[in-house]
Structures are given as structure tokens and as C-alpha cells.
């Protein structure tokens, strides 16, 4: 049975539907046990914890989610996914938020590779630069 939540704003409703479609996840499966945040190695550098991200996504809080530091901090290590007792792929939800922010038509990239010094760039392994660009640029 599909459970649905009554959201008063249609903007919120369409945002929830979009995040669920991109991520392939059922947000309402989450019962807020907090295991994702407890094990997250990046939690110390986040402003909103992973379990809070899921709650806010259920409620369609688009503005706060897309402005959060967390969506850029998560590196998809998948510790949350592998420990979630409800088998929710939290990292996929965060990636769908990141993709939504990157595809807002503003080309508002989080990494400006030309601002990294040539010395640092030549020192970095190729996989670091390529993966950063894949995750942080539109």
C-alpha cells in the first residue's frame, strides 16, 4: 500500500514527486531511527543531518534543502544506505537534491576548477578532479 502525505502546497507536492522520481526512493518509508546520521563520516561537516534531510524532503522543503551545505558535503560513501533498516538509499536522495540544484538553469557550479592553483591541480590524482567535477558541476 502506498502511503501519501497531505501537503497543502502544490509546489511542495511536485518537489517531493521529483525527488522520488530522480532518486527512485520512497521517502515515507523513513521512520527517523537516525542510523544514517549516526554512521555518517561527513556528518561533522554538515549543517543538516542525513535523517533530517529525509524528513525535510518528505515535507517538500525545497528552499531549505537546496540551500543546505549538506548536499555538497555528502560524497556518496553509501554507509547510510548499507545501514538503513528500511533500505532507503539516502545517498540517492541527496544526489537528486544536488542534481536539482545544479540543473536550475543558473550554472551555479560548486567547483570552479580554474580557481584551484596549477600546482594543486597537477598534484591531484586524475580520479579526484574528474569525480569532483562530476559531482559538483552542472
Amino acid at each position: 500500500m502506498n502511503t501519501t502525505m497531505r501537503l497543502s502546497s502544490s509546489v511542495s507536492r511536485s518537489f517531493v514527486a521529483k525527488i522520488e522520481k530522480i532518486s527512485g526512493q520512497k521517502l515515507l518509508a523513513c521512520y527517523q531511527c537516525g542510523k544514517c546520521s549516526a554512521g555518517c563520516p561527513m556528518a561533522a561537516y554538515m549543517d543538516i543531518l542525513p535523517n533530517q534531510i529525509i524528513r525535510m524532503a518528505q515535507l517538500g522543503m525545497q528552499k531549505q534543502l537546496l540551500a543546505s551545505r549538506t548536499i555538497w558535503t555528502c560524497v556518496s560513501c553509501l554507509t547510510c544506505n548499507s545501514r538503513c533498516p528500511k533500505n532507503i538509499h539516502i545517498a540517492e536522495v541527496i544526489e537528486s537534491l544536488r542534481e536539482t540544484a545544479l540543473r536550475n538553469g543558473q550554472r551555479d557550479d560548486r567547483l570552479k576548477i580554474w580557481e584551484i592553483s596549477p600546482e594543486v591541480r597537477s598534484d591531484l590524482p586524475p580520479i579526484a578532479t574528474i569525480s569532483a567535477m562530476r559531482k559538483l558541476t552542472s
Partner: protein
Amino acid sequence: MGSENIPMKLIYYPGCTLKNSARNFDVSTVSSMARLDVEVEELERWNCCGTVHALGAENVMNRVAPVTNLIRVKEAQSNEFMTSCAMCYNTLKRANNDVKKNPEKLSTINEFLNLETTKYEGDVDVLHLLEYVRDRVGFDKLAEKVKKPLKGLRVACYYGCLLVRPKEVAFDDVENPMIMENLVAALGATPVNFPLKTECCGAYHAVASPEIIADRTDKIMGSASEGDVDMVVVSCPMCAYNLDFRQDDAKRLNPDFKHLPVLYFTQLMALALDCGEEALGFELNHIDPIPALAARGLD
């Protein structure tokens, strides 16, 4: 499994970083496999693996690069291939699983790659070197081939994320993998308990947020140091960069930080199998491993 004298052939996908900053990983992979009677043949015309698996449920575009490599494997008349880079392994294996599970996605990719004469039909397997050595060569045979046992060497084995997550690509326990410990034990070394062995190193934050990497390196290498180890071994050039090259940043953050060499597991194999100095490539490691090895009489 091949007999003692007939070398097994194996298609090998090195990936970009093993041909650049991690040439020590490449050369130690190829030479140690030769000692194990495995004839490694580099895949022709390989391209970027994709580096990270795009997590979008309906993503097709980011599967094109990995699938092109799977086509090259078929063109090399093989139905399997090996890579030693954890990042390449994860991306190639996940893309392969995805297109095997979603035939309509695969047919879209095949149509997009319409200039290719070979179609991909989900008929190639992606192997990591660790599972190849365990399952095809065998750790018992590896132990027999050891010429310089790494006696007394205390080693912390670091898996990071990509060898164990998600569980669909893991070839060992997700929370407490032991395959690398078993490998270093076969080489005569002593694997040491390492609580943070599957904790993320911070990955590509190395590019724009080096302060995060300094903190992760301090915590992860600090956990290894508690086991009184001589070195940490890894299977990922991304982890190797963060944990090895960023130790000076970790030291600035925490004055009690203790420097430790970080080696690829293949460098330990090449050392124990006595592949010669050129196969080790220690000059590309940031923290010189030679003093730690010399302290155990292994230089």
C-alpha cells in the same frame, strides 16, 4: 584454474590514475601477477571508467563510458576482466549490474553507440584483483610463491568505501571485510585490527575542501596508529592520495599525528614475491616506506 606451468591469461583494465600518479600501483600489479603465473594483458582502447557511479535511478548517460569498456573486453575475446583500482572497479561493476538489470536501458546505450560493431549484451564480468587472487589463484598458492616473507611487518588494511559498498558489488563482508588481511597474512605479514578500515577518506573533497581531508586523514590514520602498525595498505588511488599525501595537513591540525607509510597491497605482493625494485615504485609514495621496512629487516 590453470595448472602450474600454463599461465592464465587475464584482461587488465588499469584506469587513468594508474597510468599517472599511481604508476606504482600499475607496475606492482602487473609484475606480481606474472609471479603468480597470470599473464596480464592490458585492455586495448580502454577509456575512462566514469570515476563515480551516478546515483540517479534513470541515469543512462553516465553508463556509456563504462559500457564502452565492456564492449572492448568482448572485442578482446574475453567475458571477464580485472582491475586493481577500487574506484574503477566500483563504477564499472555498478554500471554493469545496472544495464544487466535494465534491458531497456542497455538497448538505449547500444543504440547510442551505433558506430560500435560489437553490441554489449550483459555478457562480461568485472573482477577486482583482490577477489581474483583469492578465488582463482588462491591465498595458499600465493603463500607458496612468497620468496621474502614479510615477517614481523604489522599492517593495517584499509578498504574505504568502494570495495564494500553497496553490498551488490562487495566481494566480502560489508562491515568487516577480511580479504586484504588474509592476503597480507599469506605474504607473511601480521594484519592488525583497524576499526576505521571502511570509513570514507573524504574522496573528491581533496579538490576543493582539503580541510575535510586533513581531518579524515587524522582520524583514520590515528585509528591505524593505535594498532601500533608499520604501514597502511589500500586498493584505491583516491584513498592513497588522501591518506598519504595529506598527512602533512593532518600533522598541522593535530601535533600528535604520527606519520605512517601508505602502500598499495600490490606493492606488498611485489615485495614478498621479490619482483625487484622497479616493480615497487616506492619513489611515488609520499611517506617513504623504506625506513619502516628496514626496521623489520625487509628493505
